[in-house]
């Protein structure tokens, strides 16, 4: 087991390194330096600025200096907000995005699993078709359509929900979380349904039923564990997807999270911020995928047995 974990961690390192390198050079290739401005700036000034930000060094040197700083945990100064470091900005936006992601994931898991399991109990009946069709809507309606619609209905017409913000008015966390969670609720519903279906007819369940156990216990104690396995494997990619999804939701609802920071940084050519955010998020995703794989392996008795050897 430990060898497996160690091996996967080793694999993660070149991934992260690749991300840093690719992003670094991609960002430098961008037109529009960070210091272009409307009012004319003299050559002398531009030179001074570029020296300060190390932009006058050859690319190769800049890259190495950046790596060096990174190892010490320093992601450099922001190009766009003078006097602020990228670390500052990331750690300001991170808790908010994390909270949003957490609520969305909870909503997705609870609603998704409940719906999927529910549907799997009576396949090919209304109990099955109804939740699955609703789930399909979640997949087919993009969040930038769903979000504004929810705002229109609940925020404006019915006036029971705040329209934007996060943590400023009571209840303003509800709509964004639902918007973000909706799509993943749908996926999870489908996953858990198919997982449950596969498991429901297995022999060991028949044994349990033959023993006289009530259906409820059969489902909850025996079926769920196997049936929800695909959901657990999905959690890794789901996390990555949630991060991307948060870009839109944060924009629509004006939430000061990491996603919004990233988009602004891209538009503002804030090189260091772009790099920092990308590296940070990629590392998080890699870690999360790793964790998810480990948990899935541990839960799946077959795999676990393999690793014991």
């Amino acid at each position: 087991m430990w060898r497996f974990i160690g091996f996967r961690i080793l694999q993660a390192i070149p991934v992260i390194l690749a991300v840093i390198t690719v992003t670094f050079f991609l960002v430098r290739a961008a037109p529009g330096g960070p210091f272009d401005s409307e009012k004319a700036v003299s050559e002398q000034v531009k030179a001074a600025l570029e020296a300060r930000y190390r932009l006058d060094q050859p690319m190769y040197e800049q890259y190495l200096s950046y790596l060096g700083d990174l190892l010490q945990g320093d992601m450099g100064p922001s190009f766009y907000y003078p006097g602020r470091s990228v670390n500052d900005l990331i750690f300001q936006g991170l808790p908010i995005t994390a909270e949003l992601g957490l609520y969305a994931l909870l909503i997705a898991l609870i609603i998704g699993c409940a719906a999927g399991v529910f549907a799997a109990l009576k396949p090919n009946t209304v109990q099955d078709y109804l939740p699955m069709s609703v789930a399909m809507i979640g997949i087919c309606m993009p969040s930038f359509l769903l979000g504004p619609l929810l705002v229109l209905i609940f925020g404006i017409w019915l006036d029971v929900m705040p329209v934007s913000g996060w943590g400023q008015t009571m209840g303003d966390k509800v709509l964004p979380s639902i918007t973000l969670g909706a799509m993943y609720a749908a996926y999870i519903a489908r996953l858990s349904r198919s997982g449950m279906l596969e498991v429901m007819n297995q022999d060991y369940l028949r044994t349990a039923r033959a023993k006289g156990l009530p259906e409820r216990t059969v489902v909850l104690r025996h079926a769920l564990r196997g049936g929800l396995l695909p959901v657990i494997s999905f959690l890794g990619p789901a996390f990555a997807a949630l991060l991307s999804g948060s870009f839109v939701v944060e924009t629509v609802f004006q939430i000061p999270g990491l996603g919004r920071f990233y988009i602004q940084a891209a538009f503002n050519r804030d090189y260091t911020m772009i790099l920092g955010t990308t590296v940070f998020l990629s590392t998080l995703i890699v870690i999360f995928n790793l964790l998810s794989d480990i948990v899935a392996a541990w839960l799946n008795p077959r795999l676990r047995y393999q690793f014991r050897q």
Partner: protein
Amino acid sequence: MTETTDNLVQAMPKGTSLWEDAFHRLRKNRLAMFGLCYLLFLIVLCLLTPLIAPYGYEEQNLRLGAVPPNAEHWLGTDTFGRDMFTRILYGGRISLLVGFIATFVALLIGVTYGAIAGYAGGKVDAIMMRLVDIFYALPYMIFIILLMVVFGRNLLLLFLAIGAVEWLVMARIVRGQVQSLRQQEYVEAAMSLGLSPFAIITRHLIPNALGPVIVYTTLTIPNVMLLEAFLSFLGLGIQPPQSSWGVLISYGVETMEEYPWLLIFPGLALTITLFALNFFGDGLRDALDPKASKD
């Protein structure tokens, strides 16, 4: 006596091939058939758009402004007085175009890559799949946004960027298929019969691997369309004067209170099309392998 024998013969089921079986199952799935019909209808509509569109694509009528659906403008007009029916048709052309082409790019890269890895096996396979894992771990959204911001928005780049993201899963699937198929007995038989690798690949491996590839392709298209819509919503995808459904939706969101039809119709168009694609894809998957797990 003869009558009974005839009845017996009639009662016996006819032998069917894999494809006929699949098609039969597909026909029975009503949702999938609805999806297919809708898609065919949409494609025809979009192909014929230049002939059937009632107005010019960019024809403005500034004094008219935005009006709700009426006899002259079936789906209303936008704030420039442009006919929405026309714009949605043209938007559909672009959205579908991006969907199909980007998926095709992904397909091409993915199938080639996966087939090579699967057939070669061993070290080559291990390295190739490691690369796939690496790319899979990257937050693709970040990179696509970065690509579009850095290199400006043009259509070609959009195809490449999106295609470059979606090929990964395709490669994995194809490789998995090829790998398992390679070990099948009939392939061993073919090999011992002296068939060339090329013949083996074309006559045995690809047709059998085709099933999941087709299914996954059909399911990739809606993902691609969603991705394009999202990028356009951010202002990074299709640029004016061209519009895709994603662009139309983003314009519609701006004015959704005063002119809700500007949001509803493009939104419906996109959602229903995605619905149809997903149902059809699901149906295909169920048809080709009813025991396959969803997702």
